[in-house]
């Protein structure tokens, strides 16, 4: 035991005062000639022993009072509870939950993050100058010192960062956070290490996998590995009482968005309160400009959907946002945005493997009509797809002359190695290739082994023999397609209300495709997905991702030689949707906060400029220009970016901690006064699960703490008290104060027994 104010313990010598008074009192008495000794003598004889004990007890209590008071003021510490020398500096990993749920405001009107800032700031300010802090907000766990080699800092700097902290993060995995924090403390320079996790501990922060992970971590601790002390500081705890309305999701109801065509968007609101939301104002925004406002009512504990239709004027990435005006506990989730890619007019190159002078006798005639119906009908409306038909010999020349989004090979008998390489590179850079079958495919070598430089590019399936009668003889019995893949969204709504829109299609022949055979060719190639199959289960249309692009492989020709599909009404929307899907799905325009944003440099190139790529003057001008790239996070300053050096030339930005619109810019400086700035946007959003305010069940939190030997604290005072005990030993002045109070009360009681009960009331 040690005393923090040892000098004050000398006050215990004051016990001599009651002792001296007692002895003095005993030595002085008054003599009375007493008559009623007949009454007094037996009273004294009977009560003498009791009175002596009471006097001794009173003396003891009166001596104890100054001793207890002195020791209270001296602040004794029981060093038996001390884990480390009290003045030893410590390394503390401060993990602050900056997820959006921490912005929830309780009945006091103060958000959880503000409470954390205030109290944690107080804690940091009281830390020793020799202590070091590893600052680890949850949103920056990936950049923690253990992985990024960042150093430690003083408490003052950590406090500065704390003040600037904002709630931008989505749900996080508690196990990952604890592991990262424990790992980070290994870099600490002091032997006294601890991890302080400040969070509201939502239910979404832990799952069964997390618990297993923590159990493994706990076993390591039990195995004797060096392990820091872990403390959970729980903020809030009243999530179930909070009412919240949130924008849960925004969806595009079209597979791809092209300029001048109306696109439908839907937003889903969730009302997690017990009270119905009536006529809340909903505002849609496109690139920051508000559309016509709407109102919506959302029943309690349910969702509601609102839709809007909008046509974009220009291609590129656009931000579509929704805001609902309703006062609730978590205002931050009353708005949400997505970034949509409005693609330019889709250029499709149709390579006809067996052209014909007769109408609709070629391999791609039906397909060309399906891709550009307005052009075929000579109408003024704009087709979203612009198709160009060439022969296999003109393939490379056409690719050199123009950039295409999709290249369709229909019954092409042969492709030389150069063409195979060009097409493989086209696919790996993000282009899409569609292969239609035919009788010429039978001996096509490229279908067996597609050359891609020194390696191979496996197709979605290996082409096998033809099934059925390819000559469509009159006595042949037609076969039929099976169901469309319901998981493939573009074809999921081809014929609303009709569950089997392809049942009327007669299939006389198809090529047997074996997707399993591909798996052995390349281990790195993603698996193929069957988009359409025969009624017997044989795949008809397969899709596979290769590089950044996709390859679609049909087991039937693009014309009506084997099937009646091109003659059906459904063929047109089917091909249109396929083309739109192939073009529109390759960009991650909306990412979750803290996930990296990838922007290809080619995205800055406008359509006109793409055309001008062939212009020599333009090339020269571009070559002379100095190009720089920047990104502007929401509410932040522009940050310069360096594109990757690989052929794909990508811009990558990982510090997407804040939800909102990130503007990427390409700045071409031609001269001091002449600059060309192209820009595009990406949106970072917080997952909707973060809006579900549910505290982690206490039993689950307890299980977690038991696994890793952590402690849970509800407030700053209990945390400080525990830390005080851990570092310096347990302060017992409070206990002594209680004993002192009890002794004072006991002294009064005993005195009452001895004195007040016998108080003289002389008339």
């Amino acid at each position, binding site marked *: 035991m040690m005393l923090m104010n040892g000098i004050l313990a000398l006050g215990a010598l004051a016990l001599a005062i009651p002792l001296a008074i007692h002895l003095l*009192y*005993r030595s*002085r*008495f*008054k*003599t*009375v*000639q*007493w*008559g*009623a*000794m*007949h*009454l*007094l*003598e*037996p*009273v*004294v004889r*009977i*009560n*003498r022993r009791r*009175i002596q004990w*009471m*006097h001794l007890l009173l003396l003891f209590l009166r001596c104890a009072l100054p001793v207890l008071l002195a020791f209270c003021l001296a602040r004794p510490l029981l060093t038996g509870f001390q884990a480390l020398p009290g003045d030893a500096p410590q390394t503390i990993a401060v993990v602050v939950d900056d997820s959006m749920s921490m912005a929830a405001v309780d009945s006091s009107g103060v958000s959880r993050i503000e409470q954390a800032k205030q109290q944690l700031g107080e804690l940091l300010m009281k830390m020793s100058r020799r202590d070091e802090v590893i600052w680890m907000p949850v949103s920056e766990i990936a950049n923690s010192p253990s992985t990024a080699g960042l150093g430690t800092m003083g408490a003052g700097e950590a406090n500065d960062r704390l003040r600037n902290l904002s709630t931008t993060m989505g749900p996080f995995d508690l196990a990952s956070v604890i592991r990262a924090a424990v790992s980070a403390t290994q870099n600490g320079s002091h032997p006294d290490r601890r991890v302080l996790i400040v969070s509201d501990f939502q239910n979404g922060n832990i799952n069964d996998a997390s618990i297993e992970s923590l159990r493994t971590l706990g076993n390591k601790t039990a195995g004797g590995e060096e392990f820091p002390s872990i403390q959970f500081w729980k903020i809030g705890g009243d999530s179930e009482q909070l009412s919240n309305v949130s924008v849960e999701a925004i969806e595009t109801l079209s597979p791809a968005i092209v300029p001048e065509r109306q696109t439908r968007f839907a937003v889903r609101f969730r009302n997690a309160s017990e009270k119905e939301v009536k006529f809340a104002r909903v505002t849609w925004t496109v690139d920051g400009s508000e559309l016509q406002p709407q109102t919506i009512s959302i029943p309690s504990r349910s969702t509601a959907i609102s839709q809007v239709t909008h046509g974009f004027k220009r291609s590129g990435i656009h931000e579509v946002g929704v805001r609902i005006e309703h006062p609730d506990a978590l205002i931050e989730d009353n708005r949400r945005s997505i970034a949509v890619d409005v693609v330019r007019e889709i250029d499709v190159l149709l390579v006809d493997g067996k052209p014909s002078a007769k109408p609709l006798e070629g391999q791609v005639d039906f397909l060309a009509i399906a891709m550009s119906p307005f052009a075929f009908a000579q109408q003024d409306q704009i087709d979203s797809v612009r198709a160009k038909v060439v022969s296999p010999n003109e393939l490379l020349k056409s690719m050199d002359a123009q950039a295409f989004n999709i290249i369709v090979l229909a019954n092409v008998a042969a492709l030389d190695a150069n063409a195979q390489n060009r097409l493989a590179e086209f696919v790996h850079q993000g282009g899409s290739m569609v292969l239609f079958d035919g009788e010429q495919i039978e001996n096509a070598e490229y279908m067996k082994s597609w050359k891609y430089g020194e390696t191979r590019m496996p197709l979605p399936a290996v082409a096998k023999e033809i099934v059925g009668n390819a000559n469509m003889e009159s006595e042949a019995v037609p076969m039929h397609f099976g169901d469309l893949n319901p998981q493939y969204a573009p074809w999921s709504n081809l014929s609303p209300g009709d569950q089997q829109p392809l049942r009327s299609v007669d299939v006389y022949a198809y090529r047997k495709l074996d997707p399993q055979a591909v798996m052995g060719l390349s281990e790195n190639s993603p698996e193929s997905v069957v988009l359409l199959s025969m009624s017997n289960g044989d795949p008809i249309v397969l899709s596979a991702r290769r590089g950044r692009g996709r390859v679609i492989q049909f087991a039937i020709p693009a014309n009506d030689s084997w099937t009646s599909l091109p003659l059906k009404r459904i063929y047109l929307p089917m091909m249109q949707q396929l083309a739109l899907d192939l073009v529109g799905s390759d960009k991650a325009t909306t990412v979750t906060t803290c996930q990296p944003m990838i922007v290809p440099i080619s995205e800055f190139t406008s359509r006109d400029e793409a055309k001008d790529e062939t212009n020599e003057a333009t090339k020269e001008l571009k070559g002379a220009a100095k190009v720089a790239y920047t990104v502007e996070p929401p509410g932040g300053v522009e940050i310069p970016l360096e594109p990757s050096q690989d052929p794909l030339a990508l811009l990558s930005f990982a510090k997407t901690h804040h939800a909102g619109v990130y503007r990427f810019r390409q700045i071409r400086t031609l001269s001091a006064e002449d600059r060309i700035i192209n820009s595009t946007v990406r949106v970072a959003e917080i997952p909707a699960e973060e809006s579900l305010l549910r505290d982690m069940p206490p039993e689950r939190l307890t299980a977690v703490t038991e696994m890793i030997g952590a402690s849970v604290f509800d407030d700053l005072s209990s945390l400080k008290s525990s830390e005080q005990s851990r570092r310096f030993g347990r302060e017992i002045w409070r206990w002594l104060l209680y004993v002192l109070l009890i002794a004072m009360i006991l002294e009064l009681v005993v005195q009452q027994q*001895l*004195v007040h*009960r*016998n*108080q*003289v*009331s*002389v*008339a």
Partner: protein
Amino acid sequence: MRILDLVTPGQLSRVANLQLLARQVVEGFCSGRHRSPHKGYSVEFKEHRQYVPGDELKNIDWKAFGKSDRLYIREYEEETNLKCTLLVDRSGSMLYRGDRSNGLSKDEYAQRLSASLAYLMLGQQDAVGAITFDDRPRTHVPTRGRPSHLRSVLAALSGPPEGRETDLGGAMSKLVPKLGRRGLIVILSDAMGELESLNRSLAQIRSRKHEVVFFQILDPDEVDFPFSGRIHFEDLEGVAEDQTVDAVSIRAAYLDRLEQHSARLRDICRRNRIDFVSIRTDQWFDDALHQYVALRRQIK
């Protein structure tokens, strides 16, 4: 025997003071009380009753006959002289004098009270005698009705106390044969002694048809025990061992003991049909005599 043979001149002057004091106090009570002092005759009218043959004619109330035309006999209550014997406790415990007792010890208070009673009794033409005692009878003044007998009584009361222990029971049992024919016995004592023997002695007195009044004289200090701090109590009777105690710590127990003692004494008096009067020495004599006279009226 002359009074100067019994007491010194100083004592005599104290007796004279006592007489004067007693007279001043008693006169207020006796004014108009005895309009026709007829000794030995029944003069006190009690009631009328109807005449029956055989009654003395001289006892017929003719005035009543004249008014009601019926014969009534007047009946009178017999009156006789009262013999009052004062039994005065002069033990050591009676010598206690507290700060609030007007400078009088219980013994001095008993002297004055008994003198006042004697003067009162003699003023009422009653006979008065006095017996002092501690652990045994000490002085005995027989009952006489002469006014000059007062001096004898006072002389007996003013004798110096010997400071012996109190033995009420033993002393009284020895007094019983000396009390003569039935009369009024007035006991003045603090009753600081063993009560069971007192009970027996009082029963003996009562069995002889004496009417008894018990004046318990207590000092205020003995009633509320006002002491504080450490007190060395010395026994005035020199019998019990001296006690040095913290007065405050035993006060409650002492008061409980006093209450038990007084309750037992009252119970003894009630059982023997003895009038019990508790008097504190801070109480004036006229109050004490008021109590006595009121008590006597009730007895009558």
